[in-house]
């Protein structure tokens, strides 16, 4: 498995501001992802964080709204830009490890936008 930490664990933000979420892994990993979980819902993939190149976004998510950085194989950030109350969600990073391609998740960042 992998030990994954996220900062902050939670935050309350004002409409129109931006928040950057950090994801740190205790070992080098190739595949890293960002997911969103809206209240009472399941998880939806936002993007694949690619080391050394631009992230790959899923349908419905764009770089201007969710810019992602991946400077190395153990760290990534997700920024939620120009926030609105609809962005209130849990944001989770995940990594793929091991020969069976198990995917492990960080503890999540609970974001509330007022």
């Amino acid at each position, binding site marked *: *498995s992998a030990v994954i930490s996220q900062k902050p664990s939670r935050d309350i933000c004002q409409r129109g501001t931006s928040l950057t979420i950090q994801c740190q892994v205790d070992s080098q990993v190739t*595949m890293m*992802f960002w997911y969103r*979980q809206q209240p009472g*819902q*399941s*998880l*939806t*993939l936002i993007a*694949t964080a690619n080391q050394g190149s631009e992230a*790959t976004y*899923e349908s419905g998510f764009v770089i201007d709204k969710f810019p992602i950085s991946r400077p190395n194989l153990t760290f990534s950030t997700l920024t939620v830009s120009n926030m609105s109350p609809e962005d209130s969600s*849990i944001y*989770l990073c*995940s990594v*793929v490890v091991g020969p*069976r*391609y*198990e*995917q*492990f*998740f*960080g*503890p*999540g960042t*609970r974001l509330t936008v007022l």
Partner: protein
Amino acid sequence: SQQGEEDPQALSIQEGENATMNCSYKTSINNLQWYRQNSGRGLVHLILIRSNEREKHSGRLRVTLDTSKKSSSLLITASRAADTASYFCATDAARAAGNKLTFGGGTRVLVKP
């Protein structure tokens, strides 16, 4: 869009009983993973089952996979109050690149002491 559906959406059982939940999906997969989430926290990885496997066990957990029916089940035996959580299945589609997961809607399990 969600790859799969889970049923039931919610399940309430007494401590000591078994809990079974099912997951159906739409496309061919490389693997299927089950997760537990307590009260909106992070996801805990439970079991991964590959497309060429039919059954996996881990402690009190038993997962089956039927690729002909595109379905999987998670059985929790001798449930405990601490098993109260939401359970999600997630599939890694065979034709999609990069181990991206698509999640089912989840089953909320309440184990009453």
